[in-house]
């Protein structure tokens, strides 16, 4: 309902994020680029601004863990659960965990980190799962062609309900 939706969002438009650790399969620079591209997907359709920082008090904290990792939601090794994230109104707001036991990739092999990162970032911004297969917030992993990837109408409408539309600098 609207009361829940209103509470499950950040009350600011500039959000910092920190990458705490990295997976085994990808270079650190590659992961940084992937996360940068993933946050851009959401900032392109909202007034949100994302800044990568190294400080511990970042709004969004991204990390990779194996099996039980202290939050009561253990990972399960290769396959199964790929990651999870906490909504803005939860106790661990902005926390994103990826399963370090997966084979993360930049392609169709294993699991594409860019696609999963967009999904988990959606949670950390306040979005729940969608039943729409075309939505990036659909709960099951589906590889999508990165050359033509774009958010679904459902995704854009729901994130803009929380944060509004991006003000374009271009005049009509």
């Amino acid at each position, binding site marked *: 309902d609207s009361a*829940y939706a209103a509470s499950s969002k950040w009350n600011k438009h500039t959000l910092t994020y920190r990458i705490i650790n990295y997976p085994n399969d990808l270079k650190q620079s590659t992961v940084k680029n992937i996360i940068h591209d993933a946050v851009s997907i959401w900032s392109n359709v909202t007034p949100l601004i994302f800044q990568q920082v190294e400080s511990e008090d970042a709004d969004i904290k991204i990390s990779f863990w194996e099996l039980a990792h202290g939050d009561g*939601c253990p*990972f399960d090794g290769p*396959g*199964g*659960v*790929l*990651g*999870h*994230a906490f909504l803005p109104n939860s106790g661990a707001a902005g926390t994103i965990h990826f399963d370090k036991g997966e084979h993360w990739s930049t392609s169709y092999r294993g*699991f594409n980190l860019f696609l*999963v990162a967009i*999904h*988990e970032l959606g*949670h950390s911004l306040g979005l*729940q*799962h969608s*039943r729409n*297969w075309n939505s990036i917030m659909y*709960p*099951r*992993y589906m590889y999508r062609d990165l050359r033509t990837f774009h958010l679904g109408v459902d995704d854009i409408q729901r994130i803009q309900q929380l944060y509004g539309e991006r003000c374009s600098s271009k005049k009509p």
Partner: protein
Amino acid sequence: FPVPPATDLKGLDFAKDYFHQFFLTKKEPSLLIQGEKIQLLPQFHLNEANLREEQMLTVLHQPRCGVTDVDH
């Protein structure tokens, strides 16, 4: 009563765990009743006519996000 094969029990246990992890709060009893199974169907774009246990289990084993599907 006939005793179901061990493999069926394993699959049913997985389905129960899955359902309770992603669709229910942890306070609710760990049972996969017919009503809950029917509630699962639209999640997987299945219908009762073509539902077979192994088909549902195949879908349940697909990689996914660990966040619950419960609509708040």
